[in-house]
């Protein structure tokens, strides 16, 4: 206990020092919102990765791999290829160049200026400011619960303590403080994951031996999961079964593609001075991201073989049916005691790096994209600090009043809404000169509305947790009323993005084809750095 407390104290000292370094060099709004556009590729890439991967990605998705097995590695492939390569090369370079041409400081401002629309900027900023505190609250609750269990800190004190710590350096140091601390936190996370991976394979006698041992456990797959379509931890799920839909539409597609339209990630492309830094960041991200998601999913799946060898039980039985407990129990029961301290530090780092970015992007959306945009005047560092303060307080309030089950599902809300509302307008805005203002508005509003409808009334995980569908129509999902086994009935497990994203994309193309083109001089200015 004392060694854990000392390690956390040392860690916090380094974080505060880096926060201070960020504050010291933050003078202008560009420093506060974009780290002065002078960030190094190493810091940018590590910060991008640490923001992307939170505690829920390690503990939650690692636990999901304990249940569903190796098919989750398809998500790892997407996080590397789409989340790093496509994001940085295909989106990042154009985002940075267009951001320079249009003097954009935030993701909504880039969209708003690309389409010459203050409505687009405010609408995007509004979605971010309203929903990111709920996403942040989920991360805050997760780390506060871990602190309560590991160090015996009362839950409410952990909530407030974490909030105050983060608020100090995010509010004062802006994006520089956020990115410096993120990079440090990413290094701790990487060290933890390397030890976890090597330790797990060593326990099972090597890579091939470990996979073979897991493959042989297929007959032990719980009956309930077999009925849902699962065939084994290395075999995956039957095509078209409910669990196949959960794995491939929600986890693999929903998260793997959704990453492209995350404003807290996209803004990082504008923090570097040239394409060179993005090229170098591809290298760093291409190593860091598989170390996070790849290791979490591999260890989650292999935990079944380790638990079986040591305790004669599969992972979900060890965790008494709670998927989220698989990784913590694995650390506690299987890994050496000193590793528990490092794991706690890694969880701390993962949560803080994600939270700090969420606070920052929520705050700048409020100050820059809503408040200053409506007033029509350029703001200051002070107004950004005020925006971040309000976001921090909103996240704390959500964490305080909502039950953990609802908040955890609300995380999916943010990913779903961002992809459907922003991705077509963002992607086509970077690549298609013929995209019109009306096309962007209709695509964003249509994608948002469709995604919202699907989350509230169709996708069972969220609609059941929120309860609006039950209150209005007497059933947890409108799809549940269809004939069992029919395509319509299966819709309750289909991710909102599978429906809302194509609708948003079609709306963007169709409306842009029939509406007034944007002024040629404006379009030329948008693309002057792209060619």
């Amino acid at each position: 206990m004392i060694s854990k407390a000392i390690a956390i104290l040392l860690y916090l000292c380094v974080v505060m020092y880096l926060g201070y370094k960020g504050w010291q060099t933050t003078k202008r709004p560009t420093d506060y919102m974009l780290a002065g556009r002078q960030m190094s590729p190493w810091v940018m890439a590590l910060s991008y990765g640490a923001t992307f991967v939170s505690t829920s990605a390690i503990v939650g998705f690692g636990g999901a791999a304990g249940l569903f097995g190796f098919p989750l590695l398809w998500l790892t492939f997407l996080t590397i290829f789409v989340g790093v390569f496509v994001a940085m090369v295909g989106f990042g370079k154009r985002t940075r160049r267009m951001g320079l041409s249009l003097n954009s400081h935030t993701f909504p401002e880039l969209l708003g200026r690309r389409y010459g629309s203050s409505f687009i900027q405010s609408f995007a900023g509004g979605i971010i400011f309203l929903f990111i505190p709920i996403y942040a609250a989920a991360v805050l609750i997760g780390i506060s619960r871990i602190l309560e269990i590991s160090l015996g800190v009362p839950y409410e004190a952990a909530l407030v303590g974490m909030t105050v710590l983060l608020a100090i350096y995010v509010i004062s140091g802006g994006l520089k403080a956020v990115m410096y601390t993120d990079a440090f936190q990413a290094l701790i996370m990487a060290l933890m994951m390397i030890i976890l991976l090597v330790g797990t394979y060593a326990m099972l006698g090597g890579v091939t031996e470990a996979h073979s041992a897991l493959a042989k456990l297929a007959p032990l797959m719980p009956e309930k999961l077999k009925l849902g379509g699962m065939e084994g931890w290395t075999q995956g799920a039957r095509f078209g079964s409910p669990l196949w839909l959960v794995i491939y539409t929600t986890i693999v597609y929903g998260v793997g593609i959704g990453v492209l339209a995350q404003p807290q990630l996209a803004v990082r492309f504008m923090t570097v001075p040239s394409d060179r830094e993005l090229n170098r960041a591809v290298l760093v991200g291409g190593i860091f991201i598989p170390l996070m998601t790849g290791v979490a999913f591999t260890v989650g799946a292999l935990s079944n073989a380790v638990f079986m060898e040591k305790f004669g039980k599969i992972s979900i039985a060890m965790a008494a049916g709670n998927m989220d407990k698989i990784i913590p129990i694995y650390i506690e029961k299987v890994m050496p005691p000193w590793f528990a301290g490092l794991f706690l530090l890694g969880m701390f780092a993962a949560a803080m790096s994600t939270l700090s970015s969420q606070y920052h992007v929520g705050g700048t959306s409020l100050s820059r994209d809503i408040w200053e945009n409506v007033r029509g005047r350029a703001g200051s560092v002070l107004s950004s600090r005020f925006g971040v303060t309000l976001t921090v307080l909103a996240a704390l309030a959500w964490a305080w009043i909502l039950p953990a089950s609802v908040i955890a599902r609300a995380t999916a809300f943010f990913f779903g809404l961002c992809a459907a509302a922003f991705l077509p307008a963002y992607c086509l805005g970077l690549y298609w000169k013929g995209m019109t203002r009306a096309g962007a508005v209709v695509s964003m509003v249509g994608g948002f509305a469709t995604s919202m409808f699907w989350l509230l009334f169709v996708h069972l995980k969220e609609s059941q947790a929120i309860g609006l569908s039950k209150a209005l129509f007497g059933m947890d999902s409108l799809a549940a009323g269809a004939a069992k086994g029919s395509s319509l009935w299966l819709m309750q497990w289909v991710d909102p993005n599978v429906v809302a994203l194509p609708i948003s994309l079609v709306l963007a193309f169709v409306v842009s084809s029939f509406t007034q083109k944007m002024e040629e001089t404006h379009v030329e200015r948008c693309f002057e750095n792209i060619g």
Partner: protein
Amino acid sequence: MLGFDTIEPAAALWLCLAASAWCVVYGIRNWNESGRKQVSRDGEE
């Protein structure tokens, strides 16, 4: 097949390793590639 009894998990694992290697090679090959000089309107409101 890395000890797996079906092709799917082995393919996913190999693709992860290939994607990671691709990112590393891309980063090395373009290490000093800055792109052409760009117009900056930083500070204009």
